[in-house]
Structure formats: structure tokens, C-alpha cells
């Protein structure tokens, strides 16, 4: 075999290696979802969703945790959405190219890389202790809002960048002010992209466990929260609690709760991708 043939062979070999690696990633994903479905699907029925937590695994349900997750999701959206979009608009449309803008940018990029558990420590000290909110839904939501803020800001900026400048120019030419241009032209035109980013950020928030444990969310709450100052649990913490128990019944419960959590996460991701595609087609 001459050199050329050896090189061609190596080229082919790498191709198959590459396909193999790509497939391993996908196979693991499938395997993994399959395993959890086998473990947990039999446990899911209406009473699993509506039952309160219990010491007996077969009577336990996820009602309080699910309600906690929904509360957290709603409050986090209300807090993080306006602030994140406002900050993104400022950075993209108002900020001058000066030192402060540069610091803001480095800072946001750094915040996106801070481990989530550090946000938990921040929330514990500032919201739970100093602002005296206790281990409440509000304290948890504020903590998660700070956590997803960088993601929302970056998504907003990307979406605004994608709006063609002709739209902006046309608006100014008609005598619109800067804010009128942003409010009536830029934001509607970038809405799909912003929405995608916000949904992805929220899907991350719904799966977060560590910062909420640090803030003091409980593994066992007898009632679903009824106002923002109530104590709470969330689905991931309920799952964590069940995994930590030795009895087999709780493992089954954990798998069943994981199916629900994964369902929520994947649906949110799917919706986000749908909005992105729709928006990208509209921009073209």
C-alpha cells in the first residue's frame, strides 16, 4: 500500500470514528430516557400528580413539588423577563462604546459562567437573611432570576442584532423617536428571538436544584404554596430527596417524577425551537 492509500484509509477510518462518536451521544440520550421510562412510567397516574408527599412511597405524589415549580416558574418569569430584556435593549441600542459598556459586557459573560450554587449562596445571604424573606417562593424566584438574567440578556441582544437596520432607518426617517422606534419596530421584529431565549432560560430554571437547596427550599412541604411568602419545594428537589432514600419504591417514584420533569423541559425546548424557526423565516 502506498502513502496515498494509507491516507485515504485513515480518512475513512476517522469518518467512521466521527459517526460513532456522534451516535454514542445520541444513543446515550435514548438509552437514558428509555431506562427512566421503564423504571417510572408504571408509577404515573392521576393520583401520583395530585397526592401530597407521604412516608409511604406508593401513596406519595408530586402535587406540592409541582405546584412549587409552577410558582417558581411564574415569579421568575415576572422578575427576570422585563429586567433582562430592558438590559439587553440598553446594551444593544443605548450603550456607547466606552469603558463602562466594556465592563458591563465582560461582567455579563462572567456571570453566565458562575456556578449556580454560588447564586444560591448569594440568595441565602441577601434575600433570605438580609431582606428577611425566609426560605420563601419569592426568595427562590429572585435567586433563579439573577441566575438566568445573563441568558435572557444575551438572547435579547442577539435577537435585536438580527433585525435589519433598514427597519430602524425607515422608522427614524418617519420622525419616530428612539424609544418609539424600539417599542414599535425593533421589539416586535425581534420578539421571536427574545421569546426563544426566555423560554430556554426558564427551562433551565425549572431544572435547577442546587441554588434552591442552598436558599433553603424544603424536601418535605405538607401544602402547596398559596402566596409568594410560603415555604416551598420543587420537582428537582423532590426527585433528589427520593433518590437519597434506600427503599426501592422511592426510586420508582423518582423515575416517575423525572419523566414529568423531563417532559416539561423538553416541551419548553421544543416550543423554543418552534418559535425560533418561525421567527427566522419571518426575518428572511
Amino acid at each position, binding site marked *: 500500500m502506498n502513502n496515498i492509500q494509507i491516507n485515504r484509509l485513515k480518512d475513512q477510518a476517522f469518518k467512521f470514528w466521527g459517526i460513532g462518536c456522534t451516535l454514542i*451521544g445520541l444513543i446515550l440520550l435514548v438509552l437514558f430516557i428509555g431506562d427512566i421510562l421503564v423504571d417510572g412510567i408504571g408509577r404515573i397516574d392521576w393520583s401520583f400528580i395530585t397526592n401530597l408527599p407521604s412516608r409511604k412511597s406508593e401513596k406519595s405524589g408530586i402535587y406540592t413539588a409541582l405546584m412549587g415549580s409552577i410558582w417558581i416558574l411564574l415569579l421568575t418569569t415576572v422578575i427576570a423577563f422585563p429586567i433582562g430584556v*430592558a*438590559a439587553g435593549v440598553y446594551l444593544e441600542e*443605548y450603550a456607547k462604546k466606552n469603558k463602562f459598556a466594556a465592563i458591563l459586557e465582560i461582567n455579563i459573560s462572567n456571570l453566565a459562567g*458562575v456556578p449556580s450554587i454560588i447564586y444560591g449562596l448569594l440568595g441565602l445571604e441577601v434575600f433570605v437573611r438580609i431582606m428577611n424573606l425566609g426560605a420563601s417562593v419569592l426568595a427562590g424566584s429572585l435567586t433563579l432570576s439573577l441566575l438566568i438574567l445573563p441568558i435572557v440578556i444575551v438572547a435579547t441582544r442577539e435577537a435585536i442584532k438580527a433585525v435589519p437596520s433598514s427597519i430602524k432607518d425607515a422608522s427614524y426617517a418617519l420622525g419616530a423617536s428612539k*424609544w418609539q422606534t424600539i417599542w414599535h419596530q425593533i421589539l416586535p421584529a425581534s420578539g421571536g428571538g427574545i421569546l426563544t431565549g426566555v423560554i430556554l432560560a426558564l*427551562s433551565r430554571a425549572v431544572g435547577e436544584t442546587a441554588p434552591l437547596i442552598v436558599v433553603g427550599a424544603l424536601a418535605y412541604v405538607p401544602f402547596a404554596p398559596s402566596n409568594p411568602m410560603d415555604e416551598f419545594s420543587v420537582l428537582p428537589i423532590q426527585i433528589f430527596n427520593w433518590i437519597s432514600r434506600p427503599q426501592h419504591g422511592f426510586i420508582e417514584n423518582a423515575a416517575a417524577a423525572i419523566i414529568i420533569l423531563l417532559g416539561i*423541559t423538553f416541551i419548553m*425546548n421544543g416550543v423554543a425551537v418552534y418559535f425560533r424557526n418561525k421567527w427566522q423565516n419571518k426575518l428572511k
Partner: protein
Amino acid sequence: MRKVKELLIEKLLFASASITIIVTIGIICVLSIEAFQFFSEVSIVEFLTDTQWTPLFTDKHFGILPLLSGTVLTSFIAIMVALPIGLSISIYLSEYAPKGFRKTVKPLLELLAAVPTVVYGFFALIVVTPFLQIIWPNLSGFNSLSAGIVMGIMIIPYVSSLSEDALQAVPNSLREASFGMGATRLQSAFKVIVPSASSGIIVSIILAISRAIGETMIVAIAAGQQPRLTLDPTVPIETITAYIVQVSLGDVEHGSIEYRTIFAAGITLFVFTFLLNTLSYRIRKKYQAKYE
């Protein structure tokens, strides 16, 4: 009137953007104030050199090394899994795969990073550890090996997606020149494209390491809660993040030395990830303009 409104809105938007600065200052203040009080009771020399971490026992030792070794060990295993697989995927998708295949596979792989980490923890403890125990019967039920492997699977898309973006950014003229010289795709990939995209690839690896160091639930569930200065991947260990979770789950009084240990551990974690993130930002900024 319109001017006043415009100005007011600008100030409001500015305030929103400034919140991010306040968050950073808040994190640094909270961590340093509590850590400062911790170091007024425990000497920094003991913190950095003692080989035991037992703040919750009666015989208290405050050496961060065992937690640090646990963090480094699990992260190292994760990178050993994610790096070869992630890089191979990125090279394959960018240089070999048909465009349609790439467009379908990339978002699917990114789903791996969207799965909540508590789910990975379940997977590591319930599936991977029993499976590895078939091969190594003396593997402990909690160990850094399976936690590290599963964490590696989780960060594959961080490496593959970002590296693939970097490879795609290399201008086609370089590829064509290389092919024109008679190089195969493999030769072009490793001798021309990968070196040209090296800064982007390095950034993706640094971000993956930073993600692994800060990862919490997988190690809290599957790696154990025994701080131990070891590089043996088969025994239970504890990472910095898992320790913070362990203390948070218990009843620790505010203001006690045990309470402050989580901030001392937290600031150690923060310093490491901060350095890595800053480094990756610098590299990205420095080389971003290369092909524009």
C-alpha cells in the same frame, strides 16, 4: 415632554443593565464577608494545607484540599470523557457530515445539556454505578468514576457545539487550498482547520472545565459525602459543591463556624471558575476578529 420621557426610559434601561454589576458586587461581597469571618477563626495556612475537612465533627479540621481533590478528580474524569468525544463530533460534523445531518444532530446533542442535572445524578447512581460494578466488583456504591463519566456525557455538547462553531468559522479558502495540495479531509482537518480554529476550541474546553467544576447535583448524588484526599476514582469522595449542598440540607445555625464554611468553600469555587471564565473571555476577544 417627549424628551423627558425618552430620558426617563433610558435611565430605566440603564438601571436594569446595572443590576448585573450589582449582582457581581453582591456575590463578591457576600462571599468575602462571610469568608473573612471564617478566616478570623481558622488560619488561612490551615485552610490551604490541612489534609482533613471535618467541620461537622467534634474534632474539627478545616483543610480544603480533600474537597479540592474531589472536585479536580471528578472534573478531570469528565473532561477525559467529553474532550475526545466532543472534539471528534465537532470535526466530523463540520468537515465530513452532510449539511442536513448536521442540522438535525446538533440540536439533538444540545438536548444533552438541557437535561436537568438531578436527572443525570439519578442515572449515575442507579444505572452507571451498578453497570461499572459488574466490571470492577470492588467499586464503591458512591464513587467519583461514575459521577465523572456521567458529567462528561453532560458536557459533550459544550465541547462539540462551540468547537463546531469555531471550525465552521474557518474560511473555506483554507480548506480549498489544502485540498488543492492533495490533502485528505483528515489531513486538512488536523493540519489546517483545527490549528486555525484553536482559540475557539480552547475556549470551548475551558468553558467545559468551568462547568464541570461548578456542577453540583451529579456529584452530590453519585460521588458520596466523604471528603478524602485521594486520586482513587473507586471510593466515595466529596466535592466543594456537594459539601455546600450537604450543609444546606442539614440544620446549621446562621453565624456558626459550620455556616461560614460553605462560604469559604464557595469563594474557593468562585475564584477558580472566575479565573477560567476570564481567561476564556480574553482568548475569545483576542482572536474574535481573526477571520472577520
